[in-house]
């Protein structure tokens, strides 16, 4: 489902300064597997998720998603890939603050041909499943951290993706909300999703639903 082969990522600052963030990263995540990327802050976990999600291009190497190479995919097609196959859950949720919960959740489907009523039905169904339907029309800036994260999860699921990418999803949550999140992730795995989650939260390392732990340090797999 997800495969990285010898991926390097180098950021250039000006003509002479280059910073290598990832070196020779190779791993794969099979369909319906839950893989955990772990390592200290700044080790390159988020960059790997960006590359898998097509938000950023690798400097070298191959990235294969659902049997298609995306490393050199034009921007237009990587956007389509995200819209059709990938749901992103970000560390800081990345919601649009002065929009309501439902408006945030439906954003990924706005450019599609799906009708507005169907989009809303989908969003409401997910909101019910995540117990935030009563916050449907509340501005997200007025929601608690846990509620905001559920809105972010709902947004990641509204396009019915096969792959869920989550970047430090519990970094802004207390322990209770983190455990709630783990329950949601387990349900998503049970629902057949392929999950790649980056976190250095020890709560994840002992989970029995994790198939694979990939340890990253200074941009390399250990």
């Amino acid at each position: 489902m997800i495969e990285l082969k010898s991926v390097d990522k180098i950021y250039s600052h000006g003509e002479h300064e280059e910073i290598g963030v990832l070196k020779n990263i190779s791993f794969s995540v099979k369909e319906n597997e839950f893989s955990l990327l772990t390592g200290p802050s700044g080790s390159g976990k988020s960059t790997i998720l960006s590359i898998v999600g097509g938000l950023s291009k690798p400097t070298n190497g191959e990235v294969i998603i659902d049997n298609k190479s995306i490393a050199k995919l034009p921007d237009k097609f990587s956007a389509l890939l995200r819209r059709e196959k990938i749901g992103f859950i970000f560390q800081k949720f990345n919601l649009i603050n002065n929009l309501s919960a439902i408006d945030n959740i439906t954003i990924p489907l706005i450019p599609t041909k799906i009708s507005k009523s169907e989009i809303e039905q989908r969003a409401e169904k997910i909101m019910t499943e995540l117990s935030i339907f009563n916050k449907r029309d509340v501005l997200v800036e007025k929601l608690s951290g846990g509620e905001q994260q559920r809105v972010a999860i709902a947004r990641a699921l509204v396009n019915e993706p096969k792959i869920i990418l989550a970047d430090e999803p519990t970094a802004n949550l207390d322990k209770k909300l983190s455990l709630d999140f783990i329950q949601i992730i387990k349900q998503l795995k049970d629902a057949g999703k392929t999950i790649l989650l980056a976190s250095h939260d020890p709560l994840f390392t002992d989970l029995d639903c994790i198939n694979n732990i990939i340890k990253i340090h200074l941009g390399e797999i250990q």
Partner: protein
Amino acid sequence: MNFKLIDFTLKSLKRRLTKKLSVIFIFSLIVFLLVSVFSISSSIKKELEISVNALPEIIVQKMSGGRQTVIPVDRAYEIATIPGVQNAYDRVWGYYYFVNDNVNFTVVGLDFDLEAYKQKYSDIINLYAEATDTIDAPFMIVGSGVYKMLEDNFYKNFYNFRTVTGEMLETKIVGSFTDVSAMETNDVILMPVNYVRELFDISENYATDIVVRIPNPEEIEIIKQKLNSMFPDSRIVSRLDIEASYQNIFDYKSGLFLALLIVAFVAFFILVYDNASGLSIEDRREIGILKAVGWQVENILQIKFIEGSLISLFSFFLGTGTALFYVYILQAPILRNLFTGASNLKPTFNLIPVINFEILILIFILTVPVYILATVIPSWKSSVIDADEVMR
């Protein structure tokens, strides 16, 4: 067309309402200034055009000590014999200072200028003829501006003129008139000529000036030269001379408007530059989020295009509508004084509604597409770089 994108754009505008309202206010104000300036300018040009067209080909004025004085009426007969002259007749008219409102009225003796008025104002002629038959006392037909001023000063039926000899001349108001060109007729009072003579103390052998009608425009200059040599004590003024003097005044006043236009355009380009020079961190972050959840660059450009179009079109039509209302309904208070002067010596006149579509299209092209581009281009710049970089 994806209506969901329009819906999203409207929501996006709503949540940035304060910022966008200030843009709409500035944009509309600039369009308002531009359209007002050009509308007043077009209207006054039209007024001048009508006024000039109504002028006789030549006017002969007798001068004394460099100032105009009365002219012997028998000169009109002499002038009429010049080949090429269709008609020459003397006019008796003058300015009457209306002390209540601190303005001058132009009092015209109608009998001698009947032909000129017949062509344009048949209803005035009829009214005048009827009054001549029925009233054996001074009477007058007044321009709409004069009528309003007299009415405001409680002179509804008559007005007592004070003649130059100090006598009171009670004059009945028998009617009023308006014309397309208010500048030409607004301050006019038409009276039987004998009462005008009495008012200004002009004897029967003299007139204020002599009007010369020449059907062939090619002959005007030649006849003007002849008149110059026949009457060295006179000033011979052709329609072209008056047109040129009007144009000079107009051109001089245009400089003030040009300054206003420059200010408006500079303000607009500052607005555009501010828009185009870069997005706020919040805007860049939002573009990053949209890309991360699967929006393509073209989707982002579409909403920015819709946003720019909605703001610029709304502001353009708001500014244009307000300007037309300000100029033609409110009669452009303050601004029109720049062109016409703030003189109290003439009654106010109405600006003729002249909508110059070429100018409106020009203002549209110089503002609306420019603003749309200034909205779309910075978003395009942000949306073509990697989404994770945008969000960082």
